[in-house]
């Protein structure tokens, strides 16, 4: 009884103060053997635009799983949500490559029985078992869609597309620039510096030592004076461009599509320095209360039809190679427009988000980890 009381008290204290990801140790959890009957509900953590009625409603009708979606504005927020309340609040998450490893090592997600995902064999080879969602041969997620972070600009200010990311560091546009309020934005500046200041020796924008980080922070502190607002949600940036408060900034294709649909004079481009990007993975919470609905959802969104709908809605590229035909059927030319037929060269040209760690890829251990990135970001935005 006293032990029970003590435990109870400890849980109250912890529950009040923290959203504790109850450590489950490293023992490997068993993946599901077969998909059973749906539980009637599915709680989803997703990027804005990832749980649209176009494919959610038919899913609900087909499986009886009612979808409750919670949108997150950053990878950090997704990780925090999946860890909140002991980790049993949400079933699935559309995690990007800079969140997946944190969720895997944090024991927040469960192994996936890939045999239960029939569409998986149609994925492009790079996304069948990428190192950001498959560890030691165990799948912890199923790849979804991918794309580049783009340069969004007002076509009245820029009659022709800017060819360099330098415009978002250019004092000429002081007070009219917007970039995401997100530490991973440091990688965008690092990528730019890797091309414009080769002497720094930046080879991977996610692997920065202190000297390189200092140069990046200096660039971004200069940029802070030009920023109208750091956007937290995609809808913030949409409002900034709609009202004319911002004329140039870093964005996702989703904002471009939404703004263009609203007849705001904007366009986007990938400048010469290249781009960072995301490759998203659907993962299932280690304590998912509705695992059968979770598998049903992953199977639903990896079908060529939903892959195509998602790709066109958000402006990104599907993992499923069979989606190309569906994209063209829905909107002629869409497959080529959104790189549905992308070559490996195009894929490799994008520097996909990943979690910065102290271990640099070159065998050295002097890189800055994500906590250092967060501190640097707070210093930058003041």
């Amino acid at each position, binding site marked *: 009884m006293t032990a029970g009381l003590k435990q109870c008290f400890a849980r109250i204290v912890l529950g009040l103060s923290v959203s504790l990801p109850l450590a489950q140790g490293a023992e490997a959890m068993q993946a599901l053997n077969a998909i059973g009957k749906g539980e009637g509900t599915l709680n989803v953590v997703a990027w804005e635009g990832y749980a649209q009625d176009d494919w959610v409603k038919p899913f609900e009708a087909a499986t009886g799983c009612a979808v409750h979606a919670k949108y997150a504005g950053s990878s950090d927020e997704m990780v925090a949500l999946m860890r909140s309340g002991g980790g049993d609040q949400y079933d699935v998450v559309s995690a990007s490559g800079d969140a997946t490893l944190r969720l895997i090592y944090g024991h927040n997600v469960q192994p996936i029985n890939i045999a239960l995902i029939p569409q998986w064999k149609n994925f492009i080879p790079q996304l069948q078992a990428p190192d950001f969602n498959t560890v030691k041969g165990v799948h912890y997620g199923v790849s979804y869609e991918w794309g580049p972070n783009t340069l969004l600009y007002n076509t009245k200010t820029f009659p022709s597309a800017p060819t360099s990311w330098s415009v978002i560091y250019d004092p000429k546009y002081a007070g009219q620039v917007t970039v995401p309020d997100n530490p991973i934005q440091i990688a965008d500046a690092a990528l730019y510096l890797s091309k414009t200041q080769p002497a720094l020796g930046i080879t991977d924008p996610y692997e920065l030592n202190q000297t390189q980080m200092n140069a990046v922070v200096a660039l971004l502190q200069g940029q802070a004076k030009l920023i109208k607002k750091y956007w937290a949600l995609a809808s913030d940036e949409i409002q900034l461009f709609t009202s004319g*408060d911002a004329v140039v900034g870093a964005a996702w294709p989703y904002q471009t599509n939404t703004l263009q649909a609203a007849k705001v004079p904007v366009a986007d481009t990938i400048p010469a320095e290249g781009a960072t990007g995301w490759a998203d993975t659907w993962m299932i919470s280690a304590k998912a209360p509705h695992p059968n609905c979770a598998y049903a959802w992953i199977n639903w969104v990896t079908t060529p039809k939903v892959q195509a709908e998602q790709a066109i809605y958000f402006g990104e590229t599907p993992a499923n190679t069979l989606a190309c035909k569906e994209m063209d059927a829905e909107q002629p030319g869409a497959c080529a427009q959104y790189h549905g037929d992308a070559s490996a060269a195009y894929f490799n040209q994008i520097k996909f988000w990943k979690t910065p760690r102290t271990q640099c890829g070159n065998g050295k251990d002097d890189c800055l980890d994500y906590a250092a990135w967060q501190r640097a970001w707070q210093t930058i935005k003041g």
Partner: protein
Amino acid sequence: MTKRTWRGSLFAFGWRHEGAANAALLGLPAIWFLTLYLAAIGALLITAFWQVDDMSGDLIPGFSFSNFAELLSDPIYRTIAIRTIFIASVVTLTDAVLAWPFAYAMVRLSGPRLRAVLMALVLVPLWSSYLARVYAWRLILAHDGVLNWTLSAAGLPDLHIGYSNWAMWIVFSYLWLPFMILPVAAALERIPPSLLEASADLGERGMATFRRVILPMALPGMVAGAIFTFSLTLGDFVTPMLVGGVGSDFIGNVVYANVGVTNNIPFAAAYATLPLGVMAVFLLLARKLGAFDAL
């Protein structure tokens, strides 16, 4: 019949044992206060000394000052703390000045009907959502908003104060003004008219009466209002997020980012102890000035 006897004897017990009756009345709120409020603050103070594993996000209990060391070593957290306290103070002063004419007119110059209307004007904004009001200001202050539209119609140059500390100052002052008007009005109401007449009889002019009679007697009301305006601003993070720009983060934003976004709860807890200390000092000062008698 039995039920009645039972109730009757309970009342009788309460009548004879006043202490027991009070304890029964206060018991539930007291338990609520102790467990939910004090336990939460206790947990906050304890976690401030913990650490977090960066990759897995697991909490590492223990006792270490490293969170506090990090807060002190990086000048950005000092800047943010000073910014938060400064804006909270400026908002409090602004509201104190703005509340005066309104409260005075409401209490001293209006008839009962006008007074009811003025009171309603103060209270009605509180019935609408905080978020709706902040978003409304965001639209007013935006580049192509009502403010610049009015300015250009009047032939004046545009003001670029959307998404800035100026915008935060305006929005906070607007949001918390009712919390200053109400205690100031209550304090003014309590000044007996005979004192004002006595002051006039002794030959004091309006301004001197205000300075030497009305202002000192209304001061506790102002300080009571200041507790609200100051603490509400100090703890806010939504307004900085929505109408703030670059360099507009508050202590609350850092706490929010560390809890909700980066999952570094110990660090957030360490930073959150600062506003607790600031409010403790503020409340001690307020008590000295008699604010609690005016509430």
